[in-house]
């Protein structure tokens, strides 16, 4: 009961913030990109909060509990590079375009409504699938904790995220995401010492996890492998982690729910600094989370479904006050992603599809009203799908997110750096990449076992690249396209450029110092206990 009260209180705060900030939304720029006023803290909060969701705290935690914590962390090594690659190779150029949505950027870059529409449709389809997965994960959690039915929990979730997102748009999402970022970060960091203490103290808890006969190889680099395991051979496990890690790196670099956060940054320095803090946060949060999950295996080895492992730990292996913070933190991670996704879908429907297809320009007031109506309509559809479709948190999330790596990846980077890509190439690449992933997934669904290196995303990326190359043989590049590209390649100079640059120049050092600290933590909490177990 007390957990439910904690969650309800946090829900009320988010809705209240949405109501208060809705009064400050005066125009579409404030509603879509929060007036481009985001500070480093806020953009970092949004980047991390919209990335971490129930997929991380439930789906991936469950996968880790089943025997793959280190393998998942290997995936994160590659995955986290996406923030640095993303901000330097796409995000900052996207920000320079002063667009309100990412499809708008693609449309303006290639001077093509078709490209804009294709990007908008893939945004809506891909993010809607991801939104369903995240909402379902949160509803499973809420139902488990409060004892209400799954459908009722889904309804509560829907009311909360739809209300504050619809009312305040990006302004409310930005503030709430930052608060939520603090809550789930705090929850993850504090959980580790308490779970280890419950599991027998340090280093015994890790030694026990490493020698647990029910999960042999749990803490080996490849996790549990063999004929009856999810991963066949160690090399297959490693290949899977590297491929998925690189795919997620591309997702972080260019996906609409990550790259669009840079559109809200106050200036380019803020965008770069946020990308760096987000990298450090992701690496740290994942390390703490998955060492905790490894320790939980020694406390209870038959949690089912495994997606509930972190929730079980919160309610059984930590003090009550921390348990409340953890469950509220997981809910916060879910809500923040839902809010970002809904905001992006609503923006794309209104600005990139309705406005473009009707070939009319809405006034600010009409745009705000249309966006709110679109968001409510989409959220009702998501709610109905969530009720109808059985929950599968990790795999729907992975499928939906990785769609963007194939569909948008090649075009996004080419839009900045290539001087030969045409609108035909861009359009074919977006469509073919999207279709390639769906095709690969359908093969899997109908029993065609693809080798690990032929993951559906790889099929999609390869087809997308081929389509980009062949498609760019057709059509001509207009003067407007060349001018647009030339403009985004020019770096804007801030009025206080010297001061801003002096701050930004410290950030590589922050990354390196964090790296040394992380090596020390990994050595202390993982490798040293492992040597004791050998």
């Amino acid at each position: 009961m007390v957990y439910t009260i904690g969650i309800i209180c946090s829900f009320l705060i988010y809705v209240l913030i949405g109501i208060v900030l809705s009064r400050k939304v005066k125009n579409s720029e404030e509603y879509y990109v929060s007036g481009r006023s985001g500070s480093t803290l806020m953009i970092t909060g949004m980047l991390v909060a919209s990335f971490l969701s129930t997929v991380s705290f439930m789906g991936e935690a469950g996968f880790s509990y089943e025997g793959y914590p280190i393998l998942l962390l290997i995936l994160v090594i590659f995955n986290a590079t996406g923030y640095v690659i993303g901000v330097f190779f796409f995000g900052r150029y996207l920000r320079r375009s002063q667009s309100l949505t990412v499809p708008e950027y693609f449309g303006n870059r290639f001077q093509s409504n078709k490209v804009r529409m294709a990007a908008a449709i893939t945004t809506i389809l891909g993010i809607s699938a991801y939104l369903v997965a995240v909402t379902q994960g949160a509803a499973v959690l809420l139902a488990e904790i409060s004892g209400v039915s799954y459908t009722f929990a889904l309804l509560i979730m829907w009311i909360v995220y739809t209300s504050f997102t619809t009312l305040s748009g990006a302004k409310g999402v930005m503030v709430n995401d930052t608060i939520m970022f603090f809550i789930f970060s705090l929850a993850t960091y504090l959980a580790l010492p308490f779970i280890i203490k419950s599991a027998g103290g340090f280093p015994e808890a890790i030694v026990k996890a490493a020698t647990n006969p029910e999960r042999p190889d749990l803490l080996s680099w490849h996790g549990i492998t063999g004929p009856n395991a999810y991963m066949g051979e160690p090399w297959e496990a490693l290949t899977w982690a590297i491929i998925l890690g690189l795919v997620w790196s591309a997702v972080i670099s260019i996906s609409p729910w990550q790259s669009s956060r840079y559109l809200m940054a106050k200036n380019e320095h803020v965008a770069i600094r946020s990308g760096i803090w987000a990298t450090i946060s992701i690496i740290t949060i994942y390390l703490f989370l998955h060492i905790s999950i490894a320790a939980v295996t020694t406390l209870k080895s038959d949690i089912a479904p495994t997606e509930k492992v972190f929730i079980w730990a919160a309610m059984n292996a930590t003090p009550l006050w921390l348990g409340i913070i953890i469950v509220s933190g997981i809910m916060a991670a879910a809500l923040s992603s839902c809010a970002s996704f809904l905001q992006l879908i609503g923006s794309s429907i209104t600005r990139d599809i309705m406005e473009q297809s009707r070939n009319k320009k809405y006034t600010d007031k009409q745009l705000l009203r249309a966006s709110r109506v679109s968001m409510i309509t989409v959220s009702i559809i998501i709610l109905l799908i969530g009720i109808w479709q059985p929950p599968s948190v990790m795999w729907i999330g992975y499928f939906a997110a990785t769609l963007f790596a194939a569909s948008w990846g090649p075009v996004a980077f080419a839009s900045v750096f290539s001087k030969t890509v045409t609108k035909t190439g861009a359009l074919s690449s977006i469509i073919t990449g999207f279709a390639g992933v769906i095709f690969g997934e359908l093969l899997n669904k109908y029993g065609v076992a693809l080798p690990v290196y032929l993951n559906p995303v790889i099929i999609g990326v390869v087809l997308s690249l081929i389509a980009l190359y062949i498609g760019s043989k057709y059509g001509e590049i207009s003067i407007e396209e060349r001018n647009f590209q030339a403009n985004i390649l020019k770096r804007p100079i801030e009025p206080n450029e010297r001061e801003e640059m002096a701050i930004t120049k410290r950030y590589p050092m922050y990354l390196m110092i964090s790296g040394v600290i992380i090596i020390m933590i990994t050595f202390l909490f993982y490798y040293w206990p492992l040597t004791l177990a050998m």
Partner: protein
Amino acid sequence: MGELIFCFGYGGSLIVLGLITRVFILRMEKDVAPQQDQTDTIDEKVGI
């Protein structure tokens, strides 16, 4: 062995990213420097 490599690789990835980021930021700074120097020179001439 794999575990030890992971131990150093996990945090080590941040060190590598730090080095890469350093290069990017120094290049960014160089992009600006000529423009600012030019402005400084013009100001000086006006002063003379």
